[in-house]
C-alpha cells in the first residue's frame, strides 16, 4: 500500500480552557507558563518524531484538530505542515484544514497560516447567543466570532466552515432558527451542525446530574435538527452528511475519507489511525504520549485488527452517513461481493421500517433514517 495517498490528521491537545461538553484529548490548561511551554515543546518533538517514523505516503488531505491548534505558536503549526509536505508529499489539490476558535487573538494568525499552505479553516462558532456561549464554557463572544470570519476571509481563507451547536440548554426553536440564519448570512461555504451531547466524564455531565443544567426536551431537539434539514437545502445548501452542509462544490474532503472507510493516519495524543485494516488510537494524555514516542516506545493505547467482513460492515454504516449514501458499484469493486445480497436481511428489515432506500446506484438513508441513524447503524455493528 505504501505510496498510495492517505488522509493525515494531527492532534494539538492544548486549549486555553476546556469547554463544559468536551471529551477530546486536551491538556495543559492552567499550568505555569514555563511548564506549559515545556509541555508544548515535548508534544512538538514527539509529533515530529512520530511523523518522521511513519511511512512516507502522500497526503490527500490534512486536518489539524484539537484542542485548539491555534494556541501553539504559528511557527510550530506551519513547521509541522512543512514536515508533512517534505516527508510524504501533499497532493496538488489537497485540502488542508485547521481548527480555530473565533477569537481576535487567534485571528491574528490567519494570514501566517494561509501563507504557509493551510487552505481551509474550521471555526468553532458554536452559537450566536453570548448567554449560551458562556454556559458552554466557551472563550469567545458573538462579536468576536463575526470579526473572526471577516479576518479569515481577509487573510485569504475563502474556504471555511462554521461549527454550530443546537439543543443547547435554554435554547428555543426560534433561537436556533435565528442562529442558523445569522450563520448563513456570514456567507460561509460550509456548516457543521452538532446537537449537544453529554459525554461521560465531562463537566457538563456533572452539571446535568446535579440538576444545575437542564437538557433540552428530545422532541424540541428533533424539531431543531429537522428544521435545519429542511431549511438549509431550501437556501441552496447540500445536506451531504448527517451533520455536514455545504454550498455546491464546497464539501469537506477530509471527513469524507472517514465516511468512505478509507485510510488515514493520525499523529499526536489521542489521534486515531486506520491503515491496512488496523485501527489504533494513540495515548490520550499528552505527557504520556510524548514520553512513549521520545523514549522510542509505542504511543498506541488501543488497537484492533478488523477482518474483511468487519471492514465491509463498517464501510456500509459509515457510508450511510452521507446523503448520497453508499455507492453499490464502488462497494462491489472494492470487495468483489454484491452489496445487496451480502446484507439482504439487514436491507430488508431497514426497508420495512422505512429507514433506507435503494436508488438505481446507491443505498441511502431516508429522512427518517437520518433522524434515527444510530438505530440503522446498529444493524451493522
Amino acid at each position, binding site marked *: 500500500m505504501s505510496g498510495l495517498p492517505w488522509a493525515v*490528521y494531527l*492532534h494539538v491537545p492544548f486549549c486555553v480552557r476546556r469547554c463544559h461538553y468536551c471529551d*477530546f484529548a486536551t491538556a495543559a490548561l492552567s499550568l505555569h507558563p514555563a511548564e506549559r511551554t515545556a509541555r508544548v515543546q515535548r508534544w512538538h518533538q514527539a509529533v515530529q518524531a512520530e511523523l518522521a517514523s511513519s511511512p512516507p505516503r502522500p497526503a490527500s488531505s490534512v486536518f489539524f*484538530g484539537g484542542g485548539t491548534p491555534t494556541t501553539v505558536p504559528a511557527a510550530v503549526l506551519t513547521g509541522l505542515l512543512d514536515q508533512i509536505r517534505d516527508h510524504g508529499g501533499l497532493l496538488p489539490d489537497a485540502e488542508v484544514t485547521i481548527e480555530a476558535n473565533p477569537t481576535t487573538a487567534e485571528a491574528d494568525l490567519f494570514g501566517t497560516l494561509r501563507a504557509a499552505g493551510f487552505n481551509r479553516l474550521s471555526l468553532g462558532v458554536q452559537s450566536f447567543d453570548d448567554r449560551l456561549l458562556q454556559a458552554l464554557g466557551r472563550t469567545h463572544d458573538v462579536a468576536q466570532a463575526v470579526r473572526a470570519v471577516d479576518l479569515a476571509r481577509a487573510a485569504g481563507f475563502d474556504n471555511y466552515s462554521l461549527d454550530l451547536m443546537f439543543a443547547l440548554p435554554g435554547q428555543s426553536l426560534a433561537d436556533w432558527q435565528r442562529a442558523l440564519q445569522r450563520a448563513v448570512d456570514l456567507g460561509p461555504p460550509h456548516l*457543521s*451542525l*452538532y*446537537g449537544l*451531547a453529554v459525554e461521560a466524564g465531562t463537566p457538563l455531565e456533572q452539571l446535568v446530574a446535579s440538576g444545575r443544567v437542564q437538557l433540552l426536551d*428530545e*422532541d424540541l*431537539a*428533533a424539531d431543531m*435538527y*429537522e428544521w435545519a434539514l429542511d431549511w438549509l437545502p431550501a437556501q441552496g445548501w447540500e445536506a451531504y452528511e*448527517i*451533520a455536514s452542509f455545504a454550498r455546491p462544490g464546497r464539501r469537506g474532503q477530509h*471527513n469524507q*475519507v*472517514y*465516511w468512505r*472507510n478509507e485510510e*488515514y493516519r*493520525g499523529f499526536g495524543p*489521542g*489521534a*486515531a*489511525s*486506520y491503515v491496512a485494516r488496523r*485501527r489504533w*488510537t494513540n495515548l490520550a494524555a499528552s505527557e504520556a504520549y510524548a514520553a512513549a514516542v521520545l523514549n522510542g516506545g509505542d504511543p498506541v493505547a*488501543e488497537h*484492533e485488527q478488523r477482518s474483511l467482513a468487519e471492514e465491509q460492515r*463498517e464501510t456500509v454504516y*459509515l457510508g450511510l452517513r452521507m446523503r448520497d449514501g453508499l455507492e453499490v458499484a464502488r462497494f462491489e469493486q472494492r470487495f468483489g461481493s454484491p452489496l445487496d445480497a451480502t446484507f439482504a436481511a439487514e436491507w430488508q428489515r431497514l426497508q420495512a*421500517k422505512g429507514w433506507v432506500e435503494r436508488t438505481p446506484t446507491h443505498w441511502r438513508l431516508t429522512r427518517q433514517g*437520518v*433522524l*434515527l*441513524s*444510530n*438505530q440503522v*447503524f*446498529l444493524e451493522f*455493528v
Partner: protein
Amino acid sequence: MSDLSRIRCFSIVAHIDHGKSTLADRLIEVAGTVDQRQMRAQLLDSMDLEREHGITIKASAVRLPYLARDGQEYTLNLIDTPGHVDFSYEVSRALQACEGALLVVDAAQGVEAQTIANYHLALEQGLTILPVINKIDLPAADVPRRLEEIEEILSLPADDAVAISARAKINIDGLLEAIVRHLPPPTGDPDAPLRALIFDSKFDPYRGAVAYVRVVEGTLRARQNIRMMSTGKSFEIGELGVFTPAPTPIQSLGPGDVGYIIANIRTVADTRVGDTVTDAAQPAAEALPGYQPAKPMVFSGLYPVDSNDYHDLREALEKLQLNDAALSFEPETSAALGLGFRAGFLGLLHMQIVQERLEREFNIDLICTAASVIYQILTTDGELHEIHNPANLPDPQRIDQIEEPTVRATIMTPPDYVGPCLDLCQTRRGELLTLEYASPTRTMIVYKLPLAEILHDFFDVLKSRSRGYATLDYELDGSQVADLVKVDLMINGDKVDALSAILHRSVAQDRGRELCDRLRAILPRQQFEIRIQASIGAKILASARVSAFRKDVTAKCYGGDISRKRKLLEKQKEGKRRMKQIGSVEIPQEAFLAVLRSDETSPAGKR
C-alpha cells in the same frame, strides 16, 4: 462415654445487627480453638451473598472445649441459626438441637421485633434462655434500661443476665461461665436406638450433601448404615466429624454431641432439615417431633432474557436445588416472555438470593416477574384451585371467592412513629390486633396483614417512615377471604401476562393508574408510539402513552475515532439485547419488577 453433665448445646438468637455473629467469633476465639490466621471475621458465615446481606442463611455448628473455673473441661456446642424470618423453620430446628439459648440484646437499641420473635421460638422449644446484653462499650449503652425491657416486654427474669461487649472482648469469660452454670446439660441414653436430628444441611460440590446433626439418643459411628426416617432412604456414612471449627473426622458421636455426616448423598433433598437419622438395621420406633417438608410461600416467574438460555436456566435451577431443599420450580409458559419457570421460595429474601445467584454465579440474564402468593380460588362449580401465578386467575364470572394468605406482623417502634406505622398498615389492608406501650421507648404493634401486601416494599417503607427505628417480624397466620381482582396490563393492545397483578378491588383503580404511569417512566421511547393500558377484564382502568422517539443521531466523528463510535453503538446494542421484545415493543427487565412497588420506594417514582 463422655459425661453428659459436661456438655452444653446452645444457640445465639438476636435481632439483626445486635452482634450475634461477632459474639460467635469471640466465643470461638476465647475458647481457644482457632488460631488467628484461621480467624476470618464472622467465621460462621460462608457464602459471599450471606456476607452482603449481612445475615446467616445456613446454620453451622462448632464444638468448643472450655476449661471452666471449677477445673473441669466442658464441651460447648455452639449451633448457629439463620437470622431472617424467611428461615424461621430452620431456626426452630436449630433451636430444637439445643438445651439453651443466649438471647442477645443490643445495649443501645434494646428489645426489637426479632428479639421477641426469636425469644418466642426459643420458648416454644422449651429452651433455657440466658439474656446477654451486648455492646456495653457503646456511649449510648444503657444496661439497666435493657434489663427492664427484658423483664417487662419479654417477662423474662433478668437476674442472670450477662453484660458483655463481643467486639471489645469485655466479660466473655463471664459469659462462658454463665453458659456452664445456667444452661442445662443434655440427657439421653447412648445405648438406645439411634435418633439424631438434622438441623442443617449444606451441599459440597465434591462430597455431596453434608448433614449437620445433633444426637439425641443412641450413638452414631463412622461407617454406620443410617436411614433417613422421612424418606426411608439408607446411606453408609463415609465420614463422621465435628467442627472445631475445621471439619475433623471422629469415630463416634453420642447423646448431646453435635457434628456432621458425609455419606455420598447427592442432594440436600435427602438430608432434609428436621428429619431424623436412625440406624438402618435397628431403627428407632418414632422420629423426633417437628419435621415439616419445606413449604414455599412466595412465587415468581423466572424467564431468560434470551430464550436460548432456557436450558441453561433449568440446569442452574437444578444445581441450586442440590443445596437448597426449599427451592421448588416447575416449567411455565408466558405468552409475553416465552418459556420459563415458576419458582417457589420460603420468602422474599430467599427469592432475592436465588435470583442473584442465578445472575451472578450462572451468568444468566433474567427477567423475574413480581412476587406473588398462593391464592385459594373457589370457582362457581364448587372446585378449589390453588393459583401461584396471577395470570392464571380464572374469569371473574367463574370465581365464587378468593382466599389469600395472611401474616401476623409485629412492629416495635419508638412511640414517636406509632402514627406513621399504623397508617402504613391501614393502607396495606391491615387489621390491628394489639397496640401496647411496652416500655417508655418501645411500642409494640401487632397487625394481621395480607402476605401479598408486605411482599414488595413494606419493610423499606416502614423503615423510611420511622427514620429507620421501627423493626418488623412476621409469621404466617392463616388466610382470609378478600375482594380481589386481576389487573392486566396491555402494551399496544397486547396483554402482557407477566405484568398481571392481583389487587384488592378498592385500590385497583388507583393502582392501575400508578402502574401505567410507572411503566411510562420505565419504557424507553421507541420508533412508534406505545400505548399502555390497565384493565380489569374488558374494562379499561387507566392508560398512558409513550410518544415515539424521533431522533437518535450522533453527529460528530470523534476525529476519525471509528473504533470509539463503534463501541458506543455496541453498547447501545447490548442494552437492546437485554430487553425483552413483546410484540414490537422492547421492555427492559426492571419493568417486570416495578409492577407492585409503591411510589415511595420505586426508582421510577423518584424520577
